């Protein structure tokens, strides 16, 4: 059973609008969460993270929100730009050293 779920395989947004990518997890013991971005033919790159002691972390146009009671996190990108078009992976620290558990990813398309 998937421990990290990204239920939307794809999302299309107009340039300048907000993109909201969602992620749900199953284990309330998870305490560190990350988002990675992946362009075609490239490896994933780290985008932003959040610890369970916080409910929000902001870095420029990117904000991650964590709702621990709902076991849900979301990534907000505002304003969205065409260069943000990529696959976004949600990941959690699995507790075992070195083991990040990834979701299946959401493909974001930002249209000019």
């Amino acid at each position, binding site marked *: 059973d998937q421990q990290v779920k990204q239920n939307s395989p794809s999302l299309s947004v107009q340039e300048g609008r907000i993109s909201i990518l969602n992620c749900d997890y199953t284990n309330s013991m998870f305490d560190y969460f990350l988002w990675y971005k992946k362009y075609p033919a490239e*490896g*994933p790159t780290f985008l932003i993270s959040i610890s369970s002691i916080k409910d929000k972390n902001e870095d420029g146009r990117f904000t991650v929100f964590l709702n621990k009671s709902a076991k849900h996190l979301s990534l907000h990108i505002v304003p969205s730009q065409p260069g943000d078009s990529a696959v976004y992976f949600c990941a959690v620290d699995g507790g075992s050293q070195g083991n990040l558990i990834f979701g299946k990813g959401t493909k974001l398309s930002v249209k000019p």
Partner: protein
Amino acid sequence: GAGVSQSPSNKVTEKGKDVELRCDPISGHTALYWYRQRLGQGLEFLIYFQGNSAPDKSGLPSDRFSAERTGESVSTLTIQRTQQEDSAVYLCASSLVIATNEKLFFGSGTQLSVL
């Protein structure tokens, strides 16, 4: 080099053949990780190295898979007697140390196709 380098970038092999995938991590990174991504799936953790040691090999899918690291640098992932279900992108990542908040830096991956 500046980033994590993987070779080959693409590998097509016949079922039953052995393949060897190579990863050159960022210089000075003590931790190295292997993941794979099958079509339509998320990244699946395979194994990590702390220095040259792999403390936990339970993520490897079968005993046909093995990995080693030498000189706290290059790592090779070997798949023996490849099967069609081994087809995937194999991603290597490295980090300075192993820690909860440590960023992973990924290579571009090796696309393995088993015919």
